[in-house]
């Protein structure tokens, strides 16, 4: 199980949380997706055989949230 953390631009509407968590949660290989609203971060744990962190980043950006940096742990 791999973990990745994305730093986004400041999130302003709490409804963003549901949007991002929902979209990532639906992806195959994603175990858990959590949005930290106040620090504007997304933490995802995923199976790297099924999905890559680049694909996850692409989804977040497609939703309209530019990713500033990604940190893979």
């Amino acid at each position: 199980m791999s973990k990745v953390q994305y730093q986004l631009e400041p999130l302003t509407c709490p409804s963003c949380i549901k949007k991002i968590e929902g979209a990532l949660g639906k992806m195959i290989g994603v175990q858990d997706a959590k949005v930290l609203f106040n620090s504007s971060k997304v933490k995802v744990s995923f199976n790297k055989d099924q999905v890559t962190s680049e694909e996850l980043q692409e989804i977040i950006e497609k939703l309209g949230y530019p990713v500033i940096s990604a940190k893979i742990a």
Partner: protein
Amino acid sequence: MGKMKKVHIVIISGILLLIALVMYWLNLGVWKNTVLITTTFIAGWSIANKAIQSARMKAFSIELLVTIAVIGALMIGEYVESAAVTFLFIFGAYLEARTLEKTRSSLKTLIDMAPLEATVLKDGERVILPVEEIKQGDHILIQSGEKIAIDGKIVSGKALINEATITGESVPAAKNIDDLVFSGTIIDNGYIEVEAQKVGDDTAFAKIIELVEEAQEAKAKTQKFLERFANLYTPAIIILSIIVFIITHNIELAITFLVIACPGALVISAPVSLVAGIGNGARNGTLIKGGEVMENFAKVNAVVFDKTGTLTEGKPSVTNIKSFGMDEEALLKITAEAELISEHHLGQTIVKEAKDRGVSLTNEATDFTVEKGHGLYATVASNKVVIGNRKLLSKNNISLDMSIDQFAIQEEKNGNTAIFVGVNNKVAGIISIADQVRQEAVDTIRQLKAAGVEQTIMLTGDNKHTAEKVAAQLGIDTVFAEMLPEDKVNHIKRLQNEGYRVAMVGDGINDAPAIALADVGLAMGAAGTDVAMETADVVLMSDKLNRIPYAYSLAKATIRNMKQNMFFAIVAVSLLLVGVLVGKVFLASGMLIHELSVLIVILNAIRLVRYKQRNK
């Protein structure tokens, strides 16, 4: 458009709106409308985009409402309205993001304190490495003005270190060989070589950041209630606007109603205050773990303190040795030998005293048994030794002479803990140990009372006389002495049954059960101790007592701020809705007031970022 920054769109549409205004003065009607429509499209593009994105995720959003309203306005030819609404919306969102950043700025300044590289000693050579490449056991060199990148132990040199990022304490701490240093702290003056013990995400500093980030997400009860309310409120408003449409047959009014009713200020009112409050605490070395803790802490009216290490320095020393029927040094020797394997801090104090006096501890203790909360038994050089309090002596049928007991009581009244030593069923001596009361303790108790604490209680395993002396010195209301750990828990239960909201202050390790049971548990001096940082609700990084009244006042101020925000948001949205219904507020003006109310709520929360406790 994707690459274009939000701020540019705001500026361009703002300028276009001004141009339209000029054209209106010049009576260029057709051109004015063209410009207005262009503005609507430029500003509206990102709104519509977001609306579609969330609609795809089956999430209902304010952007969708605004898009519908704007399309409606364009269809009926209300170009001023459509341009003004889209501009105000993106302008508001931009300002919101900027000001929200301010409420979150405390944490950001903390994160920025983490250094990115460090000078590492590799095979006798100095190399500058990025922090990610530093490993446990590496030797790091740090000089004046530099930040420390790891947690570790000083192996050579000495320095004055500013540890404000960890402890909130701005007075630099003097550190020598074998002292621990923390990542994120700054060398004020000096030069040290440090062996890395914890690196990267394991450092105390990284843990603090992570805890604060999690704390900011941990919702308050009020906040959860607000969110449930918003979940009901939004569908209710949709139904209401349909009813408005059925009654008035006015689609414009119905859409305006829908857009204006969006609970923006309300939804954001609680989290902005909490984030600002928690951030302020973190910057000042007090970590309050989330909204619910903040709420509970603000309601606390009884504070329970552990004595040793909390109200006192926790560095006891031997103040007097009185022996009966044997040499003073022999008494210290036999006691220290028995205590050598004891983990009790008083036992260790005796051992330290013996070593300091150059007494060689030659005999090994056998049959070592601890009587929890009372003392211990051991056999030293075939002498049966009993060390502990009065109860332990009488339990072993060792009688105390009146004069010996008088002496012990006098020592206790002077603030000492009297340790009775019995050798072969006879009293052999009394060792007095005292622990300095912290100098800021008196002020702390006074400030807590001034801030609204009704009861201050001290619980201690120590004897009654010493406990009462310390309590009287500090102005503590109630003292319970000679407590066992489970007694502390019972006292907290009793206070809660009496209706008090109880906060328990301890060192986070010995007092863990009491800290867990209290409504709010505070652990002091927790920097670097993972257990304490995880179990306590409020973590005080330094062991400065004055952080307690600070955290308490901060919690009260934060909850007050949150309530002001909620009240204001409810009043604003109610007035707006009434205004719309009676035809005094229209889409553009409503949007303006709505955005303003959101900004006011955020600005109010920013006050908490700058909050400083007033010295009463």
